[in-house]
């Protein structure tokens, strides 16, 4: 009783658990590693105003998860994990949505909405036909970070490194494409290619979020830290740095609090991010300008 009232004691309980419970350690590591990727990707999403594309990709991911579970159980393909399916479909839907955005003359939102719904519907139908015991759909829709394994941590590390590395290597071109696609093309840069690259990075960032917050809440952690950061940063790179820092704070404190208070982790992290965004409006922007 007393331990729950005194936060310090509760915190020490969390640190003790980190030593003894490997799953909690993996969850914390995965949360920290993935924060780098969605801080960076989210900043591009906010300044380029493509939150709806992020949301569409996130929902399509369910199609990948359902498809992978269905195929791996029906045809006995052990390496086809839900996350492999999620990554494949996320990247494919990112490319498809990118193609629509670049080439549709009008009503691209309608087409993107259709892709969004079809991706999700396909996932549910795949899961309906999946043989064997029922699949815990809820853990994909709302996330369950405590399902993280050691190999997941490695996968998260590699994917996060790829996202951040590519963003650094192509930073000026990605910024240029976001700011003025037409001028970038006139300078002989393959601007469509770089826009698609950006959406692929976004797809990877979203997949890394699925275990943490699930597909429905992924959009919140893509957008909220970067939106908060954009109120204070004057350049894209400074917004990215602040967004990564905020993401680290939200994931680690969210995980610790949810463990202590026995609350669902993903939703708690999202609430923390939303509170942070709300508080940012109380701080005058001019102070930093």
């Amino acid at each position, binding site marked *: 009783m007393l331990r729950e009232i005194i936060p310090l004691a509760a915190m020490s309980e969390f640190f003790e658990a980190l030593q003894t419970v490997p799953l909690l350690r993996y969850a914390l590591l995965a949360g920290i590693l993935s924060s780098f990727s969605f801080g960076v990707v989210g900043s591009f999403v906010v300044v380029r*105003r493509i939150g709806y594309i992020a949301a569409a990709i996130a929902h399509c991911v369910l199609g990948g998860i359902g498809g992978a579970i269905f195929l791996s159980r029906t045809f006995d393909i052990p390496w086809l994990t839900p996350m492999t399916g999620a990554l494949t479909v996320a990247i494919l839907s990112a490319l498809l949505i990118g193609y629509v955005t670049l080439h549709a003359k009008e009503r691209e939102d309608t087409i993107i909405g259709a892709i969004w719904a079809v991706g999700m519907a396909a996932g549910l139908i795949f899961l309906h036909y999946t043989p064997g015991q029922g699949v815990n759909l809820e853990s994909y829709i709302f996330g369950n970070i405590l399902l993280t394994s050691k190999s997941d941590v490695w996968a998260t590390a590699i994917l996060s490194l790829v996202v951040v590395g590519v963003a650094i290597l*192509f930073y*000026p071109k990605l910024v240029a494409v976001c*700011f003025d696609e037409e001028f970038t093309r*006139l*300078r002989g*840069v393959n601007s469509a290619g770089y826009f698609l690259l950006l959406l692929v990075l976004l797809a990877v960032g979203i997949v890394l979020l699925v275990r943490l917050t699930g597909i429905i809440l992924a959009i919140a952690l893509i957008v909220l830290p970067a939106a908060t950061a954009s109120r204070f940063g004057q350049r*894209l790179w400074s917004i990215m740095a602040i967004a990564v820092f905020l993401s680290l704070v939200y994931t680690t404190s969210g995980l610790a609090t949810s463990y202590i208070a026995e609350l669902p982790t993903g939703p708690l992290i999202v609430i923390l991010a939303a509170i942070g965004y709300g508080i940012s409006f109380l701080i005058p922007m001019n102070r930093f300008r």
Partner: protein
Amino acid sequence: MSLEPQVAVGLSNVTHKFGSTLVLDDVNASIKVGESLCIIGPNGGGKSTLLRIILGLLDPTSGEVRVFGKSPKAARKDMGYVPQSIRFDPLFPISALEIVLMGRLDRLRLGGYSRDCRAKARDALEMVGLADVASKPFADLSGGQRQRVLIARALASQPKVLLLDEPTANIDLSVEEQFLETLKVLQKSMTVLLVTHDLDVISEIGDSVLCVNRRVHRHSLPLSPTTIAEIFSGGHRIEHDRRTRHAQGDHSACRHE
């Protein structure tokens, strides 16, 4: 050597249709190297389409476009394009210098811009009189400053021809004068093509104008009231032009004074 390189922009029998709508009809024009002029015409007359065709952003339905004897896409390196500043997201977190550096994108491989590129970008900002706002966010600049940053970006590419799309549309009059001074200096060293429907601007750039209204005609300056009426098909513009001339001491268009 052929005569080709003497022509900065050459259009022969250029026709463009959007669906079944004829926007440009058999356009022939030739702009010499070193020559500068304005492209004018009513809204919807095809000015922007013509500019986009010259830039190679749009392929004409038929006809041929040559820029310094090459196809527009091959000549992109030599073209500096200045779009309207109103098009941009004013909240985009970017500094003036970062925007100007985009003019050097074609020289960029991986990672950041070279020291040489940064020096060229700073030179370009200096040329438009904005060296002191290099690190300021785009959002904090005035309309006139934003427009000049976009000119500096085009200059950073070291172009042979500068193409501007309605650069005075969103800036106030006091800034416009300053802006025209910058252009007057620039047209001494390169070809300047300026799309506008601002009659005050055309007399400052070059000694003729290209009038675009489905067809294209070249008129020498100053324009007669009948020409203006033909171009803009309305009395409003003529009266505006008369008042401008009147203010400048030119009463040729005034009736009772």
